[in-house]
């Protein structure tokens, strides 16, 4: 397979108080996960405007992760 493996590019919107913190803790615990996600910190997932998701797909994102 090699280079032909599909590597999705994922954008993540993480709540400052829970999911962002959890991602920090994952780091502290040295949990290893695939390097496909790029994170954007927001203060609460209540901030998620559907516009952000549409915009993310329009720039070519393969997946959107919202964690809160």
């Amino acid at each position, binding site marked *: 397979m090699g280079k032909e493996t599909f590597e999705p*590019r994922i*954008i993540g919107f993480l709540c*400052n108080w829970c999911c*962002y*913190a959890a*991602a*920090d*803790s*994952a*780091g*502290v*615990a*040295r*949990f*290893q*996960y695939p*390097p496909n996600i*790029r*994170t*954007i*910190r*927001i*203060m*609460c997932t*209540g*901030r*998620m*405007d559907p*516009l*952000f998701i549409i*915009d*993310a797909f*329009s*720039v*070519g*994102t393969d997946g959107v992760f919202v964690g809160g």
Partner: protein
Amino acid sequence: MGNFTARVRREPRYIDLGLCTACGICANYCPVIIGDAYNENLALTKGPHRDYVQAVPASFYIDPAACLYLNHETCQICVSACQAKAINFYEQEETVDLEVGAVILAPGFGRISEEVLSTYGYGRLADVVTGMEFERLTSASGPTMGKIIRPSDGQHAHRIAFLQCIGSRDVSCGNGYCSSVCCMYAVKEAVVAKEHDPDIEISIFYMDMRTQGKEFDYARLRAKEKGVRFVRSRVAGVQENGNALEISYVNEAGKHLKESFDMVVLPEGLESPGDAQSLARAAGIDLNHYHFCSTGSFVPLQTTRPGIFVSGAFQGPKDVPESVTDASGAAALAAEALKMVRGSRVESKEYPAEIDIGQAPRIGVFVCSCGTNVGGVVDVKAVADYAASLDDVVFADMNLFSCAQNTQEAITEKISENRLNRVVVAACTPRTHEPLFQETLKNAGLNPCLFEMANIRDHCSWVHAAVPAEATEKSKDLVRMAVAKARRLEPLPEQKLPVTHKAALVIGGGMAGMTAALSIAGQGFDCFLVEESGELGGNLRHIRFMLSGEDPRKILQDTEERVRSNPHIHVYTNSSVEDVSGYVGNFVASIRTPEGHENLEHGVIVVATGGKPYEPKQYLYGKSTQVVTQGELEERLSDSDEAKRINNVVMIQCVGSRGQDLPYCSKICCGQAVKNALKILELNPSANITVLYRDMRTYGFMEDYYQLAREKGVIFVHFDKESPPEVTEKGGRIQVEFVDKILDERVILEPDLLAISVGIVPSRVEALSKILKIPLTGDGFFLEAHPKLRPVEFTVDGVYLCGLAHGPKPISESIVQATAAAGKACIPLAKGYVTVDPIVSSIDPDSCIGCGICESLCPYAAIKMIKVGKKKKAETISASCKGCGICAAHCPTLAIYMGGFTNEQILSQIRAFGEEL
């Protein structure tokens, strides 16, 4: 009082706090390996270490017992290894004298001795572990990364037994008291273990399951649903049996049984601190007979020495929320003692004026190696070079440790040298380090909002350690996204809103409300105390005597007198709160009084609306004169002539509580039953008393009285929820029928009196909940902001909670909570202002169409609708806003702007992400 000198001995750390960057190189090079006390010696650490990754202070220190240089004057490898030159073996022990106005003792608790633990095989059998050891095993950041493995052979443990009451409720080891927390943490550890591995079988052997705290029984029931087995029994001993551990116990029917397990957990109790006696001597305070701090039921946070207060487990075994509540309460008491000198020793920091940042962004990017934490995985130089190639980036560099003091100074210099007006630091997490870097910006004359972080450590190097090339690419992406956001950052003013009305409104005039009012007044602020009924005192009016011996009537009289005569306290009886408008610092309440309506201006609100006894219908209550509630029995017992005629009494516990009408435990009824039983025996030593109970929840030092009642001949018989006692009337006499499990037969008693222990229900507060936008739990009690860390606050700023309105609890706990709520409430009053985070929302009135969606969705009551001309417009109450952005996400006209998280900023991050796809 108010004037103490404390002599404090400061031991050397041998690593300079200011220079240490917590890189850990000293530990890597140190040849001495020691047990890691933080992990209960289940892991190893080095001579120089920090207790855990998130430790505060973050700097390392050297264990003098382990150090080769300090003991043998050799080695010193760490000295040359440390790039920051932070190791200092010349540091000496210092003695400092501190001038203080008050002291709060919070030394915590001690550990149960190994001698006691050894009774259950600890120390002799490797797979017998303490509760704290098991806690570390279940921790994902612990020595086994959360795997539950046996210390003896490293195999997964499949059958685990928890033995309760280790070093607790055990007179043979000198600890007659109940440690109050072990049942909870055993249930928690059992559930966490089952989450790690659902196939683990867990049995908890217990005498009484004491999960009496707010919402705690639900957690116990969830554990049961998850398959945790609860066995009512005290285990006699643990023996080795081949590869397994065999425990012997007697079940409820009195049968001797044996069972094998892979691992045995001893959830040990809380001991008084090991140095309690020397601390007591130094502080000049008394200890109780268990060597915890001596206090009283009505003055639970005061030691025997004026001006010295206590909080946490040293006051008596307790859990986190109670410790936190104690702490706020003790702070309030210290503030009362020192109200005349408030602010006299506080220093405030001055910053240079903010420079004009002009128009075009000039972005500086600092990429951090974090020692080897980032640099060991990510090609930091490549990331810095990449950052330099981005538009508007005028400066990019790498640092070994961006957070080090000297790097902070260097960043300040680079800001002015390069006239930077936006700063990006690519390093660890903004959740811990953003405030530090924002401080650096302020020192450089930049607005702190012109800062953005890229998390290339916690979210990158640490989690992609095996793929350095991908981690470097990810770091570049994160930096590009941060730079994109930075371009659109704007300076935001740090707002301070004045607290205009330096007064408090206390709703409810029971013991909690009166205590809160007295403390607020004692700290120098005016207080409106609003009580619905015609008199103050609430439930305390019906208490005639206390287990601990104090005279509640005298205390009530005295408290009421102090409230009525305090010039700061304005009492409104027969009055109720009809409406409250405004926000923290600026509330106006409209109250209905017998004279009409009145508007009260105040800055904070304490909710102390209380609770009342559940009204029973069970067990022939109201039908037979022989059936009374514990409260009514207490009333009768205060007439000693009548009491002397009471010969045969049966008491039934949990009437209304724990599953009948009220799903929760009412927490006070077990103590009440024991109190009345002892009173009956005091007046008539030959009386026969039988108490039918589910779990006797006489937690803490109350256990002494339970023990005393049993010694005096009170018979306690357990029943299950499924087979409650039956009460019938035959020929004008009541009969109580129940199953005695030990005799395995039905028993019928014909008592003179049946006392039923009825639970506590909350007052009717639905209207108040709506007025203040403060939520209720499913049980109808108020829901605090956070069950552990903010137990007396609401999510709505400026509103605080105490007493039975929060949940059932004994009077001493209500008093602590009330004092704590008063302490919290006085913080904005004492400051005189409320700081507003720049991340709050603001609404453009021109775009707002006044639809009100934002107002209805805001969880913090931070948006109000106002009339502008003929139109309705939404307006943010900045003092209450938490910056969550729910309003902005739902505004149909995009009229809401979130400071630091604008649509443009977030969209620019998304688009920057897309640039390299």
